[in-house]
C-alpha cells in the first residue's frame, strides 16, 4: 500500500475541503453552590485543507478534538466560529435541496461497527437506507446498486449476505458493510473516524487496503481520523497532528513520522512501541498528563508539558500555525 508521493502544493481550487479558523466550544458547569459556566474548547481555531483525491490524517490523543472536527465537517454539529468549505460551498450555510445534495456528497464511517449498524435491519436494508432517504432509483436499481457496492467492499457473494443481520457478521465484515453504506450514494468526501481501531490486526490490514483501493478506483477523498500514527503513516498522504483542540503540526506523512518538528509530535512518535525487542526506545520527552482545554489560559496549549518551554510560550498566546517549508506547518514559538 505504498502510495505515490504527494504532488506539489496545489492552488486553493484543488482543495475539496477547506477549514478556516474552525472552533467549537461546549459549555460545561463547575461547582454546585457557586455555579460557574465555562467553555471547553474542543476545537480551537483550526485551519487545514484536504486536496481532491487525497487522504488526510487527523491524529491525536483521545479528547484532542479530532472527532469533533470530523462531526463538524459532516455537519452533524454546527461550529461556534470559523468556516468549512466543501467544494467551495460554505457548509454551515447550505440549506434546502443543497443540503440534501451535501448529505450525499459527504459521508461518514464510524469507529465501532458493532454500534453503528442497526441490529434489527438486514444488510440489504442497511445499505439501501441512504438510497431510500435520498429517493435514488427504484427497487430494482437499488438492489443492483447494493449488490455492486457489497462486492466492491469484499462482501461476496452479495446474495449470501443481503438478508443476514449484523450479528451474523464478523467485525471486519460489519465494517465493510458500514463502508458500503457510506459509499452507496457516491460521496466525493468521506470522514472516516477510526474505522479500523476496533478490528483485529489480521482483519484491519484488509480494511485499510480496501479504503486505499476505493480511493484509487472511485477518486474519493478522505479525512482519516485516528490515534494511531503508524496506521496514519500507511494510509495518509498528509497528516495533521492535533493537541487540545489546536493543530500543532502538518506535513506529509513521511515528514511527520521521520522528522517531527513540534515537541508534542516528537513525544507522540517516540511513545509508539516498536515490534523489535532489540530496540530500546528513549523515554518520550514530555511532562505531566493530558488536561482538558476548559477556559484555557492565553498561552501555548502545550506549555505545561513541553520540555522546551520558555518565557515567550507563557507570555504570548498560542502560536499560529506557520509554514516552515513547502507544505510543512508548525505552531511553536521556539522553533
Amino acid at each position, binding site marked *: 500500500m505504498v502510495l505515490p508521493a504527494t504532488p506539489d502544493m496545489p492552488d486553493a481550487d484543488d482543495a475539496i475541503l477547506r477549514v478556516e479558523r474552525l472552533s467549537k466550544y461546549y459549555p460545561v458547569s463547575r461547582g454546585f453552590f457557586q455555579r460557574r459556566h465555562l467553555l471547553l474548547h474542543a476545537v480551537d481555531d483550526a485551519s487545514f485543507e484536504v486536496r481532491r483525491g487525497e487522504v488526510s490524517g487527523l491524529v491525536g490523543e483521545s479528547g484532542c478534538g479530532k472527532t469533533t472536527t470530523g462531526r463538524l465537517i459532516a455537519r452533524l454539529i454546527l461550529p461556534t466560529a470559523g468556516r468549512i468549505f466543501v467544494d467551495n460551498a460554505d457548509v454551515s450555510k447550505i440549506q434546502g435541496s443543497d443540503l440534501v445534495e451535501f448529505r450525499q456528497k459527504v459521508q461518514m464511517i464510524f469507529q465501532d461497527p458493532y454500534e453503528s449498524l442497526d441490529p434489527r435491519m438486514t444488510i440489504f436494508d442497511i445499505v439501501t437506507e441512504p438510497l431510500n432517504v435520498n429517493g435514488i432509483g427504484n427497487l430494482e436499481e437499488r438492489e443492483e446498486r447494493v449488490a455492486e457496492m457489497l462486492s466492491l467492499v469484499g462482501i461476496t457473494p452479495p446474495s449470501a449476505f443481503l438478508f443476514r443481520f449484523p450479528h451474523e457478521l464478523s467485525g471486519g465484515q460489519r465494517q465493510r458493510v458500514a463502508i458500503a453504506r457510506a459509499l452507496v450514494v457516491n460521496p466525493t468526501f468521506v470522514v472516516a473516524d477510526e474505522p479500523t481501531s476496533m478490528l483485529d490486526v489480521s482483519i484491519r490490514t484488509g480494511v485499510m487496503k480496501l479504503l486505499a483501493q476505493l480511493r484509487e478506483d472511485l477518486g474519493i477523498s478522505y479525512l482519516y481520523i485516528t490515534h494511531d500514527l503508524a496506521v496514519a503513516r500507511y494510509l495518509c498522504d498528509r497528516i495533521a497532528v492535533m493537541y487540545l483542540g489546536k493543530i500543532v503540526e502538518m506535513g506529509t506523512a513521511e515528514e511527520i513520522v521521520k522528522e517531527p518538528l513540534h515537541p508534542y509530535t516528537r513525544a507522540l512518535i517516540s511513545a509508539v*512501541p516498536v515490534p523489535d525487542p532489540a530496540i530500546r526506545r528513549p523515554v518520550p520527552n514530555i511532562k505531566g498528563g493530558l488536561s482538558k482545554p476548559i477556559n484555557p489560559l492565553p498561552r501555548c496549549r502545550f506549555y505545561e508539558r513541553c520540555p522546551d518551554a520558555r518565557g515567550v510560550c507563557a507570555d504570548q498566546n498560542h502560536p499560529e500555525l506557520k509554514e516552515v517549508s513547502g507544505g510543512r506547518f508548525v505552531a511553536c514559538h521556539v522553533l
Partner: protein
Amino acid sequence: MDTLLKLDDFTMHYRTKAGWVQAVDGVTLSLARGQALGLVGESGCGKTSVAMSIMKLLPYNSKVVRGRILFEDRDIYSMSDEEVRRMRWKGIAMIFQAAMNSLNPVYRVGNQIVEAIVTHEPETSEREARERVASLFELVGIPKERVDHYPHEYSGGMKQRAVIAMALACNPKLVIADEPTTALDVIVQDKILREIDQIRRKINMSMIYISHDVSVIAEVSDVVAVMYAGKLVEMGPADNVFKKPRHPYTCGLMMAYPSILGDKHELATIPGEPPNLLDPPAGCRFHPRCDRASVECREADPVWRAVAEGHYTACHNPVEITGTWSEAVKALNGGERLGASSNA
C-alpha cells in the same frame, strides 16, 4: 531455572447452547521466577481464557477437559477453595482488562486496596495496610493525597495505575496483566509499561502480559507465546520469535503491523477470518488461512516441537528465515513467498 508456573497440555472448553467451544486446547508452557511472558493473539484466540484458568476464575459453563496448571508445583485444580483463595492476590494477582471499570465507584480508591490487603493478610492491621497503600501509590506514581479520592476523580491513566497498585498490594509472585494499556493513549501507555517493568525487575516478580499488540509484547517480554484459535502456535525467547519467527501465523501477524520505524513496507493481509471454535478445522487450525498449507496440514494436527533452544512451534512447514527479518520483509514485497528460497 526455578519454575513458578507450569501449564501442561491444558485444555478447557465452554458449554454453550450451540455446543462446546474449544477455547483453550493443549497449552503447554512454563514460566520461571522473575520472567516476563508475553501472550499475544487476536480477540477470541483464548488469551483471556488462559489467564482466567490460571486464576481459577472460570465461569460455571466451563470445563477443564485435560491437563494441569501447576503453581509452585501444586495443581491449582486439585486445591480446595480455601487454598485457592489464599493463592489469589498473594501468589497470583491480576490486572483485568478494562481496569478502569474494575474499581468500585462508590468507595474511595485507597480503601478498596486496604480491603484487599486486610482480606488476604488478616494479620496486617488496617494502619499497616494504609501505610503500604501510600508506598504503593508512590511506586506507581500517584500523588499520596489522592488516596482518599473516588475513582471518578481519577483520569484513565491514574485508574490504571491504581489497579496496578492493587495487584501489587500483597506482594504477589506472579502478576497477570490482561491488556493493561489497551484503552490508553500511547504516551500514557509508554509510561505505565515502563513503570510495571521497573517494578517487576525491582522485586523480581514474574509477569504474564496479555495483548493483541505485537509491538507492546515485543517491548516488555522475555518470552513470547503466540496463540491462535485456542492453541499455542509458537513460543520462544522474544529475540528469536521476533527476528526469526517460524510459524506462518506469527509471520503474518508481524507483517500486518504497520511500523513507524524504517522504510514503509507492504502490509500483509492474512486471508479469511479466525475459525469458529465450536467446530475448528481439522488438522492445523490455521491451515485454511495459510499459504504454506499442504495435505498434511489439513489432516494432522501439528506436534509442538522445539526448533531451537527454548523456541517451540506447532507447524508442519515452518518458515525458515535465513537473513534478517527486514530482508525477509523486503523479499516478500518483491513478491517472493516468505522463506521460499530456503524451504522446499
